[in-house]
Structure formats: structure tokens, C-alpha cells
């Protein structure tokens, strides 16, 4: 049944709908593969094997009874640990929430369950989604399936590694400054940050509320579209949720497979997101992809976004400011751990301070202190106030660019996957890594990353970022599916079929079920 893990969600769905394969078989195949490879990769923080098999059995029974289910019913999915799940621990990668089982499901999780998808477990992430490498998880690193000594991206390294290593065909991620798109780029998978407000954040543990967005992680553009259709749309429980009605993203992706889908499409290449600081192989694959698009009838137009230069700076003021406020909820009273101070009186204030010292990791402390500083009297106007003005300027840059073009493109990340430890000692080096993805979050526009080849110098995946105007998410799926089809035709295979085979880890008798 190993072959079942290699299938796309769409292909698996066809076998499930036609009853050639049962949901229990599909789920078992993925759980077996997790057991075989994840001791080493560590994409999952929690695997809910029994619950997954029980859910799958229910789907099989309903299908056998003739019920018409969502096409994705019975398809396994991994869930980023930032999303509340009422039957699985939810830690956001932090010690402060160790063992917490929320009393409710995030809306996106409730929608998955309603559609009959089978949650396999929770995936690793940088603590509270603060990071670009998953090295800031309190529960250890996740390895990149392409190279075990390299980062899987972050903060959603677990979700990206899980789909790239065939442990799940689909996963959920969250993207505050690139946490879906950058991990997709460095693992050769697909990730989409929807329009701000397009997907509910109810039950997503908040990092920076004006930037956070939940979105799909997958191996194909079409799979991401199918998942987007399940999780998207208005949610009255999220006051920032848009009330717009949305077109089918899956239909948009199918449109991209038609002849001439790229004819006359105006593609803007952002001058400021190229050149210095971009790895040679990244630039090479990006330019080759543009050439392929021109040959397919698209028009390439260079556009300038002069204020993108200030995006990283504005982001690292706005995000810490909002995070310092959001993370004030971890007060050792309502949820999470409580740690008493070693000395001094046991007042609520002292217990809260001792708990946060013990429960938060270094990056979380760094950003809370930075955010507290940015919001302090005397600095507020110069820092936070100015950052909000930069946000206006970046929105204007996008508006001007989308006046000329249909979609914007850049490399998804300046480099391929870097090695563990390479950027840990220098916070700014880690922060600047998000230069390509941050502008979309600041402006609220949707963005997608798809694989476009391997960098010749290191053989590691390169991602293409596609951005569309706010609410034009469907355009990403049409263009993304068209490019994916072109590239796969030119290669003669999919990107992830080239990933090195993973060696199953020895099972130890102490492990569950291994007797």
C-alpha cells in the first residue's frame, strides 16, 4: 500500500470515491509511512493514529451506505500545531502550552472534519510561528527531506516536510510573513497564503493579528485548490473574515490546464526582489521559468516597488508589537503551564513572570521585548507609527503594479534551504530571509509558492512566488496550475519524485505497536 502515499490528494480521492481503495487503507498507508520515516524527520509533534483510523472507518461506512461525501472525504491531512484541535494537544511549538488540549476546534479544523478529511496529527513549527527554519520549536528541529542537515523552512517546516516526504498529501499551515510559502519553496512543495480574511483564523493561536492567514500546503496546485475550497469562506466567529462569496479555486486550477491559459497574461517581475542577495541557482531557475512563460504566450513586464525595501523593517516592528500584545494571554491562569518563582512572594504577577521565563524560548522573548519597546511611550510614533505608514506605501506599490499586470512574480525565497545553525546566532540574518514573502502579508494580498526546479549548485528545490490582487486568489490557482503543467512537461516528472528516498528508521520495541 506504499504507493497510496505517493498519490496526490486528487488521485487518492478518485480511488476513494470509486471505492477502489478504502479510507482505512489510505490512512493506514500514511500512518505506516510516518512510523517508518518520521522518527528521523520529526515533521509531527503528535500522531493521532487510532483516532485517524476510527475517522477513516466512519467515512468508509458512510460511503458504503451510499452517502454522497465531499470528494476529499477519507483523504489524510496534517495540521500545523498552531491550530486548535479538541482531540489533540495544541502547543504552537511552545513549552508554555505543553500538553494543552483545547476545548474547541479551529474553524478550519471543523471544516476539514465536516468534509470528512482524516486528521493524522499535528506538525512541528517555530514557537508561536516566530521563525523561518523551525529551529525555534521547543520540541526539536524538523529535517528537510531533501537534505537531513538542512532546515525545512519555517515557521511551518513540519507541514511542508510532511507533504514533501509523502507522510500526508495535504497539510494546513499559517502564514504571517511567509510561513507557508518559504517552507514550500525549500521543500519542493506547494503552499498558498490566501487573501487576508479569506480563510477563518478562529482557533488559530494568534501571532500578529493584522498579518496572520491560514492556508493550504500540498504537493500540487490542484490539491491546494481543493483544500482551499474546503477551508475558505466567511466565518462569523472571526470578525476579520470577509463576507465575499468566492469562486471555486479547484475550477480555477482546472482552467490553468487548458490550452492557452497563459496567452496574454501580464506578469510583473518585481525589480526590487532580484539581484544582490539572491543565490545564483535561484535566479537562474526563476529566469528559465520566465522564458518558459514567454514561450507560452505570457507577457513579462518589469515593475518597480520602491517601498518593498522598507518591508522587512516595518514587519519587524508591526509583528513584535502585535505579538507582545497577543502573547500577554499566557498568564499562567487559564491555560498552559504555571511555574512558581524560586524566590520572592507568590503573587500572580511574580508567578506570571516566572512562568513566561520558563515557558517562552529565546526568539519569543526577543520579539516580545522588541514589541514592548516599539510600543513604549516616546518611541511609538517613530517606530510603530512609521511602520504603519510604510504599510500604506507598500499597498500603494502593489496597487500601482497591479494597474499594469495580472500577477506579480519573484523567487519565493532568496536562497535554497540553509544548514541548521547557519542563521541562529544572527537574528537579522534570519529576518532578512523573509524579504520576498513579507510584502504580501503587509498588504493582505494572496501569494503562492510552487517548485520550479533544483538549484544547479546544491541540487535543492527553488520556489516561484506568484502574487495576485486582494481577493483574486483564483488567479493564483489558474496561473500556478498552468506553470506547474508546463514545468512538469519540460522535466518529464514531478519535482518531488526527484527527492532522495528516505530510509525507514529502525523500530524499537519500546515504540507503540512495535512488537
Amino acid at each position: 500500500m506504499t504507493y497510496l502515499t505517493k498519490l496526490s490528494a486528487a488521485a487518492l480521492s478518485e480511488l476513494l470515491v470509486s471505492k477502489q481503495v478504502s479510507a482505512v487503507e489510505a490512512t493506514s498507508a500514511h500512518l505506516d509511512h510516518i512510523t517508518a520515516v518520521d522518527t528521523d524527520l520529526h515533521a509531527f509533534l503528535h500522531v493521532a493514529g487510532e483516532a485517524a483510523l476510527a475517522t477513516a472507518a466512519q467515512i468508509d461506512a458512510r460511503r458504503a451506505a451510499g452517502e454522497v461525501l465531499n470528494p476529499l472525504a477519507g483523504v489524510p491531512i496534517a495540521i500545523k500545531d498552531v491550530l486548535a484541535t479538541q482531540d489533540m494537544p495544541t502547543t504552537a511549538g511552545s513549552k508554555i502550552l505543553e500538553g494543552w488540549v483545547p476545548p474547541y476546534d479551529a474553524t478550519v479544523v471543523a471544516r476539514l472534519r465536516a468534509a470528512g478529511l482524516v486528521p493524522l496529527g499535528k506538525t512541528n513549527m517555530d514557537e508561536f510561528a516566530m521563525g523561518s527554519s523551525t529551529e525555534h520549536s521547543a520540541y526539536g528541529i524538523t529535517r528537510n527531506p531533501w537534505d537531513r542537515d538542512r532546515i525545512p523552512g519555517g515557521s511551518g517546516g513540519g507541514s511542508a516536510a510532511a507533504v514533501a516526504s509523502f507522510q500526508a498529501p495535504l497539510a494546513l499551515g499559517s502564514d504571517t510573513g511567509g510561513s507557508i510559502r518559504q517552507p514550500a519553496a525549500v521543500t519542493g512543495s506547494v503552499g498558498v497564503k490566501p487573501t487576508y480574511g479569506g480563510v477563518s483564523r478562529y482557533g488559530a493561536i494568534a501571532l500578529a493579528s493584522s498579518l496572520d492567514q491560514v492556508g493550504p500546503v500540498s504537493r500540487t496546485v490542484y490539491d491546494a485548490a481543493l483544500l482551499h475550497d474546503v477551508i475558505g469562506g466567511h466565518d462569523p466567529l472571526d470578525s476579520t473574515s470577509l463576507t465575499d462569496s468566492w469562486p471555486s479555486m479547484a475550477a480555477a486550477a482546472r482552467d490553468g490546464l487548458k490550452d492557452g491559459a497563459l496567452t496574454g497574461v501580464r506578469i510583473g517581475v518585481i525589480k526590487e526582489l532580484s539581484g544582490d542577495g539572491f543565490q545564483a541557482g535561484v535566479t537562474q531557475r526563476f529566469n528559465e521559468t520566465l522564458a518558459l512563460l514567454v514561450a507560452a504566450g505570457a507577457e513579462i513586464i518589469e515593475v518597480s516597488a520602491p517601498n518593498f525595501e522598507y518591508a522587512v523593517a516595518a514587519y519587524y516592528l508591526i509583528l513584535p508589537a502585535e505579538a507582545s500584545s497577543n502573547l500577554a494571554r499566557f498568564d499562567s491562569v487559564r491555560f498552559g503551564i504555571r511555574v512558581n518563582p524560586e524566590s520572592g512572594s507568590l503573587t500572580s504577577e511574580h508567578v506570571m513572570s516566572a512562568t513566561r521565563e520558563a515557558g517562552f524560548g529565546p526568539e519569543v522573548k526577543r520579539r516580545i521585548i522588541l514589541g514592548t519597546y516599539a510600543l513604549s511611550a516616546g518611541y511609538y510614533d517613530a517606530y510603530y507609527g512609521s511602520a504603519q505608514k510604510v504599510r500604506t506605501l507598500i499597498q500603494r506599490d502593489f496597487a500601482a503594479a497591479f494597474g499594469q499586470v495580472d500577477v506579480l512574480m519573484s523567487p519565493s525565497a532568496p536562497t535554497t534551504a540553509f544548514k541548521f545553525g547557519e542563521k541562529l546566532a544572527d537574528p537579522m540574518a534570519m529576518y532578512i530571509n523573509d524579504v520576498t514573502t513579507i510584502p504580501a502579508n503587509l498588504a493582505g494580498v494572496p501569494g503562492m509558492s510552487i517548485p520550479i526546479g533544483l538549484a544547479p549548485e546544491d541540487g535543492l528545490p527553488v520556489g516561484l512566488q506568484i502574487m495576485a490582487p486582494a481577493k483574486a486568489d483564483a488567479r493564483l490557482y489558474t496561473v500556478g496550475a498552468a506553470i506547474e503543467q508546463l514545468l512538469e512537461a519540460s522535466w518529464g516528472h514531478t519535482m518531488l519524485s526527484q527527492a532522495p528516498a528516505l530510509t525507514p528508521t529502525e523500530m524499537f520495541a519500546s515504540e507503540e505497536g512495535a512488537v
Partner: protein
Amino acid sequence: MSEITAEQVAHLAYLARIDLSPLEITNLTHDLGQIVDSIAKVSEVATADTPATSHPMPLTNVYREDVVVPSLTVEQALSGAPDRAGDKFRVPAILDEE
């Protein structure tokens, strides 16, 4: 280098309610100085006539109907609490005895 001092970091940590060790304060003083130097450039382009954007997709007055809807039970609400007394959260003393 911006003038972030260890005393300032200690004060910020107090405001943020995080006990920090002397080593953490030293490291954060260095990091914060470096980060603030890099991000201070936002003021270069933020002119007085540029309006601020706080939210990418502005919505105002998002209301719902004023009707009772299902919510967490007391048991659910208390399920994650580190300490409880009956159907209430138990907290350490609010006021110091000193």
C-alpha cells in the same frame, strides 16, 4: 548603534512580565540594539502626510445578531487551567503582603 541599555531591557522585561536572567539581559541588549538599528529606517519614508494602515482589509463595525449561541461549558473553560477551585480559576495572591 542605538542606545539600548541593559537597564532598559530589564525594564521592558518587567513591563512584559518575563523574568530574565542577567545573561539573557546582556544578550537581548546586544540583539535589540542591532535589530533597532536595522529597522529604524522606516522613519526615512514615513512622511507626515502618509496615512497609517493598521489593517490590510479595513472592516468596520462587524456585528452579529444579539442572540444566545452555544458556548463553552464551565468544565470546558476550566479544562486547561493549571489550577482550579470548584468551578473557578484559582490564582495566586493578587496583592503582595508587603
